[in-house]
C-alpha cells in the first residue's frame, strides 16, 4: 500500500530522470556541434588544398598579384580566394578557403619540376674548341659538347684519371646557349630599377628601427629600401620581405635571413652566413668562404654595366642549393667571368652566359659559354681540372625553375607561413 509522501518520492525520481536526461541532451548536442565543426573544418582544409592545386594547374592563366574568388564546385559552398605572385625566380601561391565561420589558408612556393630531358649535366656552347679534362674530373649525365668533342689533357702536372671522359650521353651543342627565360627577367629587373609593385608596402630601411621582421606571405610585401648601402647584420628578416638598395647590400654572418629577396647592384655575403635567400644584382655578387645558402636559394646576376670582371664569385667551401645564373643583358662583348672556387658546391641549376672559372662541384645542370681555368702558372680555355659535374647526384625531388624554357608545369618547392 502506498503511503503518504509518495508524490514527494515521485518528484525526486522525476528530478533524477530529468538530470540524467538533461545531461544526455547536452552530451548529444555537444557531440553534434563537435562533429559539425570537424566536418566543416575538414572541408575547408580540403578546399584550400584544392585551391592550391587549381593555382598550379592554371598558373599560366592567372595574373600575378591579382586576387581571384572561385566557387570550386559551383555549389555556393566551397569558395576559395586565390592569389599568385612572383617571388624572385619562383612563385608564391596563396589559397584561402572559407565556409561558415571556418577559414583555412595554405601557402606554398612554386617552382618548375625538372623533367628527365632537362636533367642534363653540361651544356657547353660551341666555341670551336674541344673540352679538355684533367685530374679527377667527373662528368656524369647527358652532356651537350662542341663538335670537336671532349679529350684528355695534361695540365699542372695532372693527367685525366678516370676511365670514361663522359659518363652519359653526348650530344652536340649550338653556338649560343639556349636563351634564358625572359619572363623571369622582367620582374626582377623592375625591382633592381627600384620599380616596386603597386601593392608593396615600401619602408625606408633607415626608418625601420626594429631588429626582427617576420612577415607572412598572406599580407602585402614589405619592401625595405635605401638609396645608399644597406648592411644586414644582427637582424632577423623572414618571409614576405624584399630588401632593395641602389648601391650595395652587405650580409653579415650573424644575420638570420629566410625566404626574403635582396636586390642591389652589388651584394656581398660575409663568411659563415647561413640562410635561404634569393639575391639579384646587376654588377657583382660575392659569396665568401664557408657561406651556406639553403634550398631554395638563388644567386642571379643580370650584368648590364661594364666593370668588374669577376662578377659572380662562389668562394671556397661555400654551398648553395638552388639556382645560380649570370646573364649579360647590355653588351654581349662585355668581359665577364663567374668563379666557382675549389670545394664550392652548387646543388641545382647553373646558367652562365659568360666565362666560367670552374674549380668546384655542381650536382645538377650547368649551362656555360666557355670554361676559363685560371691557375697560378697559366690560363687554360675549356679545361676542367679536378671538377665534378654530376646530374645524377641531384635529388629526384629537386624543384627548380624553367631557366631556359618556360614551363607550365608547377611543383611545390616549400610550404610557407
Amino acid at each position, binding site marked *: 500500500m*502506498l503511503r*503518504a509522501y*509518495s508524490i514527494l*518520492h515521485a518528484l525526486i*525520481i522525476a528530478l533524477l530522470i530529468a538530470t540524467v536526461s538533461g545531461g544526455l541532451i547536452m552530451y548529444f548536442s555537444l557531440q*553534434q556541434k563537435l562533429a559539425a565543426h570537424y*566536418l566543416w573544418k575538414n572541408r575547408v582544409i580540403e578546399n584550400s588544398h584544392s585551391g592550391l*592545386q587549381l593555382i598550379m*594547374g592554371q598558373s599560366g592563366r592567372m595574373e600575378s598579384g591579382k586576387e581571384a574568388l572561385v566557387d570550386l564546385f559551383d555549389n555556393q559552398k566551397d569558395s576559395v580566394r586565390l592569389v599568385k605572385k612572383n617571388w624572385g625566380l619562383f612563385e608564391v601561391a596563396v589559397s584561402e578557403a572559407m565556409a561558415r565561420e571556418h577559414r583555412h589558408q595554405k601557402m606554398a612556393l612554386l617552382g618548375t619540376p625538372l623533367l628527365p630531358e632537362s636533367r642534363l649535366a653540361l651544356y657547353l656552347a660551341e666555341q670551336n674548341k674541344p673540352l679538355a679534362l684533367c685530374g679527377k674530373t667527373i662528368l656524369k649525365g647527358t652532356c651537350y659538347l662542341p663538335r670537336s668533342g671532349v679529350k684528355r689533357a695534361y695540365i699542372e702536372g695532372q693527367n685525366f684519371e678516370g676511365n670514361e671522359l663522359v659518363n652519359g650521353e653526348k650530344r652536340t651543342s649550338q653556338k649560343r646557349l639556349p636563351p634564358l627565360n625572359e619572363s623571369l627577367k622582367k620582374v626582377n629587373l623592375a625591382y633592381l630599377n627600384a620599380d616596386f609593385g603597386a601593392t608593396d608596402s615600401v619602408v625606408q630601411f633607415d626608418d625601420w628601427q626594429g631588429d626582427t621582421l617576420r612577415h607572412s606571405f598572406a599580407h602585402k610585401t614589405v619592401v625595405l629600401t635605401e638609396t645608399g648601402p644597406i648592411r644586414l647584420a644582427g637582424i632577423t628578416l623572414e618571409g614576405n620581405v624584399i630588401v632593395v638598395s641602389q648601391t650595395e647590400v652587405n650580409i653579415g654572418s650573424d644575420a638570420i635571413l629566410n625566404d626574403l629577396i635582396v636586390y642591389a647592384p652589388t651584394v656581398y655575403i660575409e663568411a659563415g652566413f647561413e640562410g635561404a635567400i634569393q639575391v639579384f644584382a646587376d654588377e657583382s655578387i660575392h659569396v665568401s668562404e664557408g657561406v651556406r645558402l639553403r634550398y631554395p636559394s638563388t644567386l642571379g646576376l643580370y650584368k648590364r654595366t661594364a666593370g668588374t670582371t669577376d662578377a659572380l664569385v662562389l668562394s671556397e667551401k661555400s654551398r648553395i642549393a638552388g639556382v645560380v645564373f649570370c646573364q649579360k643583358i647590355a653588351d654581349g662583348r662585355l668581359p665577364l667571368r663567374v668563379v666557382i672556387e675549389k670545394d664550392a658546391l652548387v646543388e641545382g641549376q647553373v646558367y652562365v652566359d659568360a666565362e666560367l672559372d670552374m674549380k668546384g662541384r655542381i650536382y645538377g645542370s650547368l649551362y656555360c659559354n666557355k670554361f676559363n681555368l685560371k691557375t697560378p702558372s697559366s690560363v687554360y680555355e675549356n679545361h676542367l681540372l679536378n671538377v665534378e659535374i654530376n646530374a645524377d647526384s641531384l635529388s629526384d625531388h629537386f624543384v627548380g625553375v624553367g631557366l631556359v624554357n618556360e614551363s607550365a608545369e608547377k611543383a611545390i618547392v616549400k610550404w610557407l607561413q
Partner: protein
Amino acid sequence: MAAMKRWRTQRLKAASLLESLAAMVIITGSFAGGMIIYLNVVGSNRLDARLVAERIIDLEINQGAFLQEEMHSGMPTDLGLELTVDSGNYNGAVNLRTVQYTVTNKLGKKLAERQLIHYRPHAED
C-alpha cells in the same frame, strides 16, 4: 512530551490514491521523456557512421588512392566507397580533374561525400 504524543497519534491529511496517481503520471512522463532522449542518443549512431565515413575518405586521400584510381583501405564491410574521377578537365585545364569520393551504407544511403581538385603534372604527355 505531549506534543510528541499528539504528533504520533495525529492522522495525516493526505489523499494517498490521488497522490499515487499523480506520482505515476509524473514518473511515466519522465520515463517517456527519458526514452525519447535515449532513442535520440541511440540514433546518433548515424552521426558516428558519418564520421567513420569521413575518416575513410581522409585515409583514402592520405593514401593517394585517387592517383591509382583504386581503393585499398581496410574499411568496414557494411560501408561502400565509390570513387569518381571526372574524365573531363576541370575548367578546361588539361592537367586538372575533379575527384569525388562517396561513402554509402549497406542500404545505399549516402553517408559522406567529398570533392577535390587534383593537379596532374605532365598531363599533356
